[in-house]
């Protein structure tokens, strides 16, 4: 019975992939979510469509698998992230983009059941090797979260925290300099320079998120990870953050998870489409959005999945 049903789905999918489908998007999604869907692995996951490689690769993920206990959240993902490049991770909820992002600076270490296999290289060294201290790694790979999460301290202390714990500033004036330049680059200095001693939590949502970005770049990382940084912000604040990303990518590699296809199209050089833990398609942004190679990518960006 189960076998027959699986067979039916396989045929359904194959036909769906070959011809213009009449399936409703929800049906499609439900079909893929059925456990025991291994028949499709080759077709869907093993070979990512497009081009996972890039010139000047700075961060390389090779055959990464992530398990949360028994849940296989990321399946065999290979992806390169170039220097001074914005890579957008898109895909429906629960597809593993945030999980993948959090692998890149080992934030998944804090989840006890999480297990990561495969290699992730940062500038040629394996970040999951025993010699790698996650603390040192996170100073090189910063992260900005979905919800603005400033520390309940002053604006100054928020930005100064990273440099302080890593001992980046020799004296107070140097620290002042780091704080000011970080706020400046995050586009926040004008708004807050007269109230650096006020709590960071007193700022508006958009300002708080820029404060978090300033806090991240104060450590001078090499890669910035952004986990849906604009999902809690209004369009104006979002536009400011997007402008900011444009500027920041001149110095940093940026990986951004986003639910907004428009945002991905606006800010990123390359787009990676995730589906149920598989990396389905990776390519240059304009290619993916104008001429997606994979059926699932097309369905997603045309709004049939999601």
């Amino acid at each position, binding site marked *: 019975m189960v076998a027959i049903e699986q067979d039916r789905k396989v045929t359904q999918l194959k036909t769906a992939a070959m011809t213009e489908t009449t399936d409703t998007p929800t049906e499609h999604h439900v079909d893929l979510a059925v456990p025991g869907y291994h028949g499709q692995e080759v077709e869907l996951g093993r070979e990512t469509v497009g081009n996972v490689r890039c010139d000047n690769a700075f961060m390389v993920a090779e055959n990464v698998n992530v398990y949360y206990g028994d849940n296989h959240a990321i399946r065999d993902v290979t992806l390169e992230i170039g220097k001074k490049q914005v890579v957008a991770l898109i895909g429906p909820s629960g597809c593993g983009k945030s999980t993948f992002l959090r692998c890149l600076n080992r934030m998944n270490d804090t989840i006890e059941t999480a297990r990561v296999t495969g290699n992730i290289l940062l500038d040629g060294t394996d970040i999951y090797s025993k010699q790698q201290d996650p*603390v040192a790694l996170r100073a090189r790979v910063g992260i900005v*979260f979905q*919800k603005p*999460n400033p*520390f309940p301290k002053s604006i100054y202390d928020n930005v100064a925290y990273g440099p302080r*714990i890593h001992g980046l500033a020799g004296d107070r004036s140097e620290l002042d300099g780091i704080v000011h330049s970080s706020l400046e680059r995050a586009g926040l200095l004008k708004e807050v320079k007269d109230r650096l001693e006020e709590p960071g939590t007193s700022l508006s949502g958009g300002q708080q998120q820029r404060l978090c970005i300033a806090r991240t770049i104060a450590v001078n990382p090499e890669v910035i990870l952004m986990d849906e940084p604009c999902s809690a912000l209004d369009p104006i604040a979002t536009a400011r953050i997007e402008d900011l990303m444009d500027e920041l990518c001149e110095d940093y590699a940026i990986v951004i998870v986003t639910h907004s296809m428009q945002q991905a199209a606006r800010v990123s050089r390359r787009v990676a489409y995730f589906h149920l833990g598989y990396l389905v398609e990776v390519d240059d942004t304009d290619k993916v959005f104008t001429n997606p190679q994979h059926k699932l990518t097309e369905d997603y960006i045309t709004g049939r999945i999601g």
Partner: protein
Amino acid sequence: MSTELTTRQKVEAGLARRRRKEFTFRLVGMFATAVGILFLVIFFATLLGKGSSAFSQTFLQLNVEFNEDVLAPNGELDLIYADFDGLIRTALLNELPDVSGRGERRELYRLVSIGAGYQIQEMIAQNSELMGTTQSIWVPVSANVDMLMKGNIDASLDESLRPLSDWQIGWINKLDQAGRLDKKFNTALFTNGDSREPELAGIKGATMGSFFMLVVTIALSFPIGVAAAIYLEEFAPKNRWSDLIEVNINNLAAVPSIVFGLLGLAVFINWMALPRSAPLVGGLVLTLLTLPVIIIASRAAIKAVPPSIREAALGLGASQMQVVFHHVLPLAMPGMLTGAIIGMSRALGESAPLLMIGMIAFVVDVPGSFTDPSTALPVQIYLWADSPERAFAERTSAAIIVLLGFLLLMNLTAVIIRKRMERKW
């Protein structure tokens, strides 16, 4: 259309019943609250009614001649063996010259507290120039006289049914009419240790005992409790062992306090040979008692710190330790302190475990260190409540008022600390 109407009708039909239920529930709630408040009011009213009189004490004004022949029988001041009581007796006889005969005199002398002699002794010790002069001083009267003045002894009863004789009551009335008796603030209650004489008994010894114990308790239980809570919450792996530890800590919080007293007796006194009746041991026992409370409260406070703060710090490259000490701990501190103070007020009110380690002894001296024998406020209350003298009854209530005052103060501190630190963060 018709279904819409029936839905509406159904709702309206049940509405009265729902409202009635809500009304009944409110009524029950109000009744329950009222009962609680009523008992609280009765409790405080009786306590204040019984205890407030203990804060005043009757004093007798006497013109005492600091007779050199008595104070320095061999030409030299004898501060230890001089007949200070004799000076008081002479002064009393001068006041009431009609008293004659040994029996009568003995009864007269009993009007004044034995503390009067010590008062003279102290005065002379502080200022030897008083020798040879006559001073008008106020000395405490005995507890029975005090009770009569406060209306707690019925003078109209038959002589055999009351502790004061007809003669004594006559003299008291005479002195009272002469304006020689007056009620003053009962400082002895706060400056003296325990005593067999109610008019000399005070809570200073017990208060100091409680204070030393709480110092030991807070110094041990807060750091240990907070450290345990941080380790269990932030560092310990979550497995069967940590579950087991958690269950056991929760169980410890519910263990009857007297069991901790027995444990303290076995471990601290019998095995470690620490002194009996000492605040040190009391504090150790109360530490055991309050540790689970503090650990549970601290863990709850740590759990309440939003995970986003932890992630933010970790994402910047803070180590686990830095995350805890820079971010989690400051945010959890108000909750931890509140837990600690509530644990302390529980410790302050405990008497059962202290009975086991010998802190129920009759201790006259005010303890000056952690190893001096002492008692504690709740134990002192228990001791006085057990005494037959009428005057101890009001002192029991007074001691309870003082204890409640301390508890109120501590809980108030907890509230203030929480409010203030919450505002800061």
